[in-house]
């Protein structure tokens, strides 16, 4: 253990106190908080729809920065983050970049990963500050700019007060100084991942992050990189410093060998996979700076139940079969590597089964013997993921460019029936649902039109809504925010909320690029405060070492994000300014022309002229013709003396000339070809 590199420590300490340091490295809580530490973990989970979930979890801790420790030297903890926390006094912050949608139906909606790592597409940022109320907005603006530079993303667009909001209680329990903003249209790319990786002590050169082969992780169906920061020191808890959790959640589709399998109508065999087949790389070594470096394979409760059902025919329960072969082989699949240990979930809330975790320590493997976990399915198996009590979906109603409605529909997944039995003792069983919805100002929502339907019956809003906070939008200043606490009866089958809105008009320079695509309404957050996504595993010595598993045990509410909506607004023809300029210029020309005409006209002269002409009574047509001919000949027009004769003569001459010229032109054209 003494060989752990501590290059910056003084030589004296290294030489004399090796033993003590090794104790510190794995030591008790008190010493742990005194030292920066880093750990890396990877969770793999086969999903029911033939995909694989990979969840990387990197955690860095810095000890509390004491008041005199300005300019503290960090060994492992990223300095940029530490400075950011110090400067803006960030109590808590979460930034996520997501591509694709989390499929709550098929990938689960109850476990810790889906409630804390399933994020809406684009960028989501929230932060709580430890500053006086009037400084929160300023801190938020500075923070967005800093993060924008740090992550090569347009997070700075969250600076504008029309894009962020201040939820009070439905989003995060500890609020007041919290700001929340999303950018649904932000494209996520490797240029966001690279700065994220730079925060890791080993970057992607060693350890588990070696697996992050860019083409393979961006080929997946879901990709969410997240950075979560907690610094409890501002809250007066000095015993722990800044904690930085970086997670990357990807859902990948293993290549199935037989493409023909895909279409067979009988139950399908799950595709077999290994680390090298889904990532294209293998784990060669751990990051030497990491305190722990583990890979877990999680089998969900549903899958374990299926396995146990089959095993019941055999006498021995497979999970208790201590022999090493028992871990690896069972009727459904083979594992290529023996796990170091097996953890079992305790106190599972949903259903009879509990999930199982296989643990692998990467420390044993090296370049010569790379770690390549493989899972080979032998027989088809169908299971389902635990679902949130209500499945939420949100959509737009209505058509036309004038008005519409937002509808949130909640459909029971049948999970709450389990809880019905548990909660019925209290008498009236209620299912509590929190909804947090931000709507941009150009979608003018009428909050009084909120209507609630429960089981297909319209309900009075006051019967269902327990608590409500609405801050209406202000044009070009702030978005509309709605926070709701709903209480449904436990046996609710379906519920729906509708809100009507008018579509507003933007000024021509307020339209974003590609305005004709439409405008986004960010995801609504639907959370269930009565339900907690937590997974307990058997108390084990390994558990203490694993920050990821201890995070799974944290009590966090089940939360799901709804879809992002696209509202088509009326867009002007953007060539219109040009047209307007043309028309204005024409109008001006006409105006000035007539003005000039009026100014230079001599009324007396004109009257005399008129009288003259009235006396002559010349045929106007003839005059006109003679004038025209004069113009054509370039001579000054003289008033004809004998109007009738000369005019007819001139016109005849003119006609002859015109005909002659035309004939010559035609002949020349014809013969010149």
């Amino acid at each position: 253990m003494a060989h752990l590199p501590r290059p910056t420590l003084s030589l004296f300490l290294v030489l004399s106190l090796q033993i003590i340091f090794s104790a510190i490295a794995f030591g008790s809580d008190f010493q742990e908080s005194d030292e920066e530490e880093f750990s890396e973990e990877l969770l793999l989970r086969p999903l029911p729809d033939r995909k694989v979930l990979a969840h990387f979890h990197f955690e860095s801790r810095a000890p509390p920065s004491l008041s005199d420790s300005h300019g503290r030297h960090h060994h492992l903890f990223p300095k940029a983050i530490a400075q950011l926390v110090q400067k803006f006094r960030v109590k808590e912050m979460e930034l996520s970049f997501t591509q694709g949608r989390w499929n709550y139906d098929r990938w689960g909606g109850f476990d810790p990963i889906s409630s804390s790592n399933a994020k809406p597409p684009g960028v989501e940022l929230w932060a709580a500050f430890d500053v006086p109320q009037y400084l929160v907005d300023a801190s938020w603006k500075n923070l967005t700019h800093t993060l924008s530079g740090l992550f090569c993303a347009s997070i700075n667009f969250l600076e504008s007060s029309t894009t962020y909001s201040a939820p009070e209680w439905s989003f995060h329990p500890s609020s007041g100084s919290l700001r929340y903003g999303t950018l649904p249209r932000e494209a996520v790319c490797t240029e966001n991942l690279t700065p994220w990786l730079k925060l890791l002590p080993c970057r992607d050169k060693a350890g588990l992050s070696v697996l992050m082969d860019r083409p393979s992780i961006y080929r997946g169906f879901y990709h969410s990189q997240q950075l979560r920061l907690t610094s409890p020191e501002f809250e007066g808890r000095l015993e722990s410093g800044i904690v930085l959790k970086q997670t990357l959640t990807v859902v990948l589709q293993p290549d199935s060998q037989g493409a023909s399998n895909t279409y067979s109508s009988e139950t399908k065999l799950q595709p077999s996979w290994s680390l090298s087949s889904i990532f294209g790389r293998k784990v060669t070594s751990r990051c030497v700076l990491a305190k722990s470096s583990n890979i877990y394979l999680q089998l969900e409760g549903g899958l374990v139940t299926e396995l146990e059902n089959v095993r019941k025919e055999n006498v021995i329960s497979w999970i208790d079969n201590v022999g090493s072969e028992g871990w690896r082989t069972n009727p459904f699949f083979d594992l290529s590597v023996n796990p170091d240990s097996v953890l079992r979930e305790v106190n599972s809330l949903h259903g009879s089964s509990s999930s199982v975790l296989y643990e692998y320590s990467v420390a044993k493997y090296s370049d010569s013997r790379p770690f390549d976990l493989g899972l080979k399915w032998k027989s088809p198996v169908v299971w389902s993921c635990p679902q949130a009590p209500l499945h939420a979906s949100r959509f737009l109603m209505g058509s036309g460019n004038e008005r519409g409605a937002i509808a949130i529909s909640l459909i029971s997944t049948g999970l709450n029936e389990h809880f019905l039995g548990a909660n019925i003792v209290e008498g009236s069983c209620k299912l509590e649902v929190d909804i947090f919805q931000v709507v941009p100002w150009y979608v003018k929502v009428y909050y009084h039109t909120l209507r609630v339907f429960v089981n297909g019956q319209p309900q009075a809003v006051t019967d269902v809504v327990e608590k409500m906070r609405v801050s209406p939008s202000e044009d070009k200043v702030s978005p509309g925010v709605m926070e709701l606490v709903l209480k449904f009866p436990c046996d609710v089958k379906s519920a729906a909320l509708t809100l009507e809105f008018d579509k507003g008009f933007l000024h021509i320079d307020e339209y974003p690029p590609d305005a004709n695509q439409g405008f986004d309404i960010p995801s609504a957050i639907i959370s269930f405060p009565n339900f907690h996504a937590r997974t307990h595993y058997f108390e084990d010595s390994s558990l203490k070492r694993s920050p990821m598993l201890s995070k799974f045990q944290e009590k966090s509410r089940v939360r799901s994000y709804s879809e992002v909506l696209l509202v088509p607004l009326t867009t002007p023809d953007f060539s219109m300014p040009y047209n307007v300029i043309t028309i204005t210029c024409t109008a001006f020309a006409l105006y000035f022309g007539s003005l000039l005409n009026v100014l230079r006209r001599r009324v007396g002269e004109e009257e005399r002229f008129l009288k003259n002409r009235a006396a002559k009574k010349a045929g106007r047509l003839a005059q006109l013709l003679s004038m025209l001919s004069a113009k054509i000949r370039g001579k000054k027009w003289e008033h004809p003396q004998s109007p009738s004769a000369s005019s007819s003569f001139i016109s005849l001459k003119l006609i002859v000339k015109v005909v002659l010229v035309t004939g010559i032109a035609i002949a020349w054209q014809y013969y010149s070809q």
Partner: protein
Amino acid sequence: MAESEAEVPKAKPRPIVRLGIFLISHSCLFSVICCTAGVLTLLLLPVLAKNTYISENALMPGSANPMFSSQEVSEANRLVKSLTSLDSKPVGSGIESQRLIAEYMSDLGAEISYHKFYPRSNQFHPLHFFSYPDSGSTRENVSCISHGLNTVGIIRAPRGDGKEAIVLVTPYNSLKVGPGEALSLGIAYSVFSLLTQVTWLAKDIIWLVADSRYGEYAAVNAWLRDYHMPVFSGLSALKAEICPVSNVHNELKENSVTERKINDGFRRAGTMATALVIKVTDGSEHFEDSLSIYAEASNGQMPNLDLINIVNYLAVHRQGLRVKVEKMRSLINCKWLKILGEILQSLGHVAKSLNPQWKFGIPAKDYVEGAATLASSLYYQALGVPTGPHGAFRDYEIDAITMEISSRVALNNKARKNDFLLRGGRLIEGVIRTVNNLLEKFHQSFFLYLLTSPSKFVSVGVYMIAFALLVASLPVVAASLYADAHKVDPSFGIDKSTPQASATDELSITPRSCKWLNAAKKVFLVHLWGAVVSFLPYFICQIPSCTPTTSFVVWVLLSSFSLPILSLILGSSFSYGRPSQPQKRDWTLLKSVTISAAFIGLCLMSVINFATAEIGALLMVPMCLMAQPLKLDIRSRKLRKFLRVACNLALGFLGFPPAGFFVLKGAFEGFGGITVGDFWSWLESIWSWSSATYLYIGWFERTRS
């Protein structure tokens, strides 16, 4: 001449006023020239048509190689085979085929839902012409037995954000799957299966298998209505109580492997960007495989021209299909059109020989085809009845077209069939990929256009000219009539040349405006009668169980009775005495007011539905201009007058809608077997689309004062 009026030796009026006076004084010549020019321009439109071009650069049609391969073709064949084998079985309860399709879809990993709908009877609402279809309207007469069942499959784009979707629609009759329908399902399925594997998808794909048992349009429309305007309140529960037998979902779910995946709920996938309706017809073509494009939606709305362009481009340049749009077959063999085409062609030749830069001549054959296409394009836009299920999408501002692929020979030959499937599938894949490239919705190209061939169009700027020329004569004639009325009036000593000038005259304003008001009242009365006549069918169709013929008779009787009643109520007399001078003046005023009302109406109509206004103008402008009281004409027995009377009567007869309908129908289909009931059913079909044309027809009658 102009001098005669501008005698007064005072300051010359402004040039624009002088021009106006000139036009009014020559109104007869002017109106004849304008009308002729208008008709000529209309006939010239096929020559003036421009080639289409892809306006939106982001579309990039055909820039990627098609991924659709023979493997997908075998998929399509598999589905077609199982559908046809299902059809041969005697069981065929209708639900079998939906279940089969749903199973195929779920094997691909798509999300599936069934959509049950009840066909609505055609309800006519006189005041709902231009309002959006609303969900709250009549659902009372829902019968339990007759429901359709749409199957909907959705592929989520792997990395997309799910904000937009592209819709594929394959209508088919679930009771009896025809070979063409089976093939269209096969093509759609093979494309769908390809799209589950591709990585380039940015928008979700919805495949709607519409149950066309009660009409293709009804099925698609019902689904769209539920997509955009769902009803949350307890209607579904109510229905389930009334109709316990028809619980389809229970029937469907038994012994199904895919049971778990099929959700009762209505599944959605964001805002729809484009919809493609795919149909296959069998073996009707003589030369090569062809593709017919139908684009007209309700009230003459068209999808963006770019959508037609990309389909046309991909079909012609990538898949080698012959693209057709609907044309009036009867016009192709028209003699006078051919002659006109030849004249234009020779004119074009002469022009070209004069200056090689002038290229306005087109071959006579092209001209005739273009004219036929243009005529059908005008006709369908004017009718306001959608030409296919795509029309339902346009009501929700979604660009949609129907693509009807037809093969050269009957598809019995297996290799031939595979080739057909391959080309059809590649075409649809290409169109979807192109639309998928588009970040914004279609907005770059034209929405107001007429097609003269799949690759030629007349834009709004050009076809407005014909209409404007036709209509321009109306205000001029009205003004000149008004001026005439005052001129012949002996009571006014000073002859005012323009109505503007007369309005300023304080002394004479009272009697004159009264006269004017009298005429206006008369016109208003007739218009009111027209409105009553057009709303009558709504009440007539409330009468249960009547055939078209009887209801037509009832309508005619009621409407003829309603005129005297109305005139009694409003207390205006229609008796013309001897044709004295004041009588004649009255009549001139009346005609002037009628013409100005017609002018305003035509202009308004051109904003709402251009094609209707154009056709209306063609019929009404001559009628308005030539109308003369019969008594006056008959009295003076001259040949010229007699001719005019004959013309008037003929135009009036044509203008009267039922007569016009008969003549048109007779001209196009031969006079055999036309009944009065035909007209009724034609009218009925027009209402049910709540078409603006209907309003127009009613209004038509009013102008015949």
